[in-house]
């Protein structure tokens, strides 16, 4: 009895320490970033000496600020999500609702391989596609925003697939039966019953994906990001992105002030992902409220 009680104490103590450690690490990380980066956070970091209205409206290019990188990262994340979320959800639905066990095994294998692919390989893959295109259909093809978004989408696809599949499969059998017993077709059951019920879970996958899309540097380095590109006007333009900007600063800084500006950019990257998380959460809440109240 005492042994069991002691092991109980030890285990719950360990669990508490682990959670407390997590919060502490998080606070230290953000605190450190704040301490180093806050001093650099001003209009100059974003727009250099260009008036902000002119920069935001695109009247004047910004050369030394991170504004183009902020916009580039934002475009990249949104584009990659627009590609990956519908495809990922559709695959997740197939895996959970339609595929026979045999087919499911094959698709699952493919998803696992995709999930295990290092991002640098994904970047190389994108780069190879461009090489191939140049030699065949499109001699003028070059690395660009769209290519980066496609490769990032490939990178985050497995998260969204798995999380969609798992959330759908987690719907309890007696709830699942409501659909067919009320005369819903399989597709209606998925749309009106299973997807709303798993929206919370799917959302967590989308958030993970957004985080991954925001931070990845290896993929975009090989597929279209450059240090100075300005704000991309078209999908096939080169672009700037904050993680790459931070990488450049870290590699080439010449003064403490420059390094601090890098930390400032890191804070901005965190803020962008934070804002996107909030946006997605808000969207999910709107969807759920609509489903709970209205008909």
């Amino acid at each position, binding site marked *: 009895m005492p042994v069991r009680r002691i092991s109980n104490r030890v285990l719950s103590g360990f669990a508490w320490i682990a959670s407390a450690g997590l919060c502490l690490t998080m606070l230290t990380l953000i605190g450190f970033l704040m301490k180093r980066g806050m001093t650099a956070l001003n209009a100059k970091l974003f727009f250099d000496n260009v008036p902000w209205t002119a920069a935001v409206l695109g009247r004047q290019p910004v050369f030394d600020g991170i504004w183009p990188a902020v916009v580039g990262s934002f475009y990249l994340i949104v584009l990659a999500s627009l590609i990956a979320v519908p495809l990922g959800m559709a695959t997740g639905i197939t895996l959970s609702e339609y595929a026979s066990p045999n087919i499911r095994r094959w698709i699952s294998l493919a998803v696992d391989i995709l999930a295990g692919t290092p991002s640098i390989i994904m970047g190389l893959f994108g780069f190879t596609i461009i090489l191939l295109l140049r030699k065949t259909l499109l001699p003028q093809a070059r690395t660009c925003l769209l290519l980066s978004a496609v490769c990032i989408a490939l990178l985050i696809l497995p998260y969204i697939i798995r999380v969609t599949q798992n959330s759908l499969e987690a719907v309890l059998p007696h709830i699942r039966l409501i659909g067919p017993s009320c*005369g819903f077709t399989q597709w209606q059951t998925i749309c009106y*019953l299973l997807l709303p019920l798993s929206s919370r879970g799917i959302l967590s996958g989308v958030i993970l994906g957004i985080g991954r899309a925001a931070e990845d540097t290896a993929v975009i380095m090989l597929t279209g990001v450059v240090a100075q590109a300005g704000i991309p006007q078209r999908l096939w333009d080169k672009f700037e992105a904050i993680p790459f900007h931070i990488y450049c600063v870290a590699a080439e800084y010449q003064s403490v002030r420059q390094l601090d500006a890098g930390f400032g950019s890191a804070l901005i990257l965190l803020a962008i992902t934070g804002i996107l998380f909030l946006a997605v959460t808000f969207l999910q809440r709107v969807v759920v409220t609509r489903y709970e109240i209205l008909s």
Partner: protein
Amino acid sequence: MNSLSSVLEVTNLSVWFSERQVLSDIHLSLFPGELTVLIGHSGSGKSTLLQSINRLNEIFPVCRTQGEVQLCTERKKIRVYQSDVPLSEIRRRIGMVFQTPAVLPFSIFRNVAMPVRITLGYRGNVINERVEWALRQVSLWDEVKDRLHKNASTLSGGQQQRLCLARTLALEPDVLLLDEPTASLDFKSARKIEALLGELKTRYAILVVSHSLGQTLRVADRVCVIRDGRMVREMGKQELRNPAEFYRVIETYF
């Protein structure tokens, strides 16, 4: 009321799960104005029989069904397993309520309104009227009319089960199948559902699976005993009037 023509006719129905035969040669008729109770051991095939009547068993890929189920509505006869009537209409016409109150984690209103909108294709005010009508049918309207947009999970177990029944009724079924509808409810809520079934049977043919012999005696007009997938005994009103005889039969066939 014409008690001779059945609403639902099950003939020669056999069901297999993989290689195992779960039901053999079942014959069963449901009549309007009559409540039939199906009793038998756990695993005797009661729920399978219920689910093969509205073809719900087909969602299990290993299930194979043989035989015929015929639904006789006012206008037409529908052969459940062979007809060109869409499966969704068949399932709507043969309404089903499960053992665990399966409410959706949506609002009370939406629990009834969503199926009405999707399955029957109704829109606008017709839906509101239909929801109110269905909730009145199960005497839930007065209890929930002021909180229709609260989450349905805030209701008690008995209320949730009545909400499920309302959801089924709102879809204009011809037949009601209930799989141990009171098994997870307390005594009082169970009695309420029993009283409700007594009212509803005047309008629908009802088939109830029950594990409670007391309940069976209280509500049944006809009892079918099922054992190892076979219908072994049927008892009509006459026999049910004599509880001693009823229990003797149960002793013999259970």
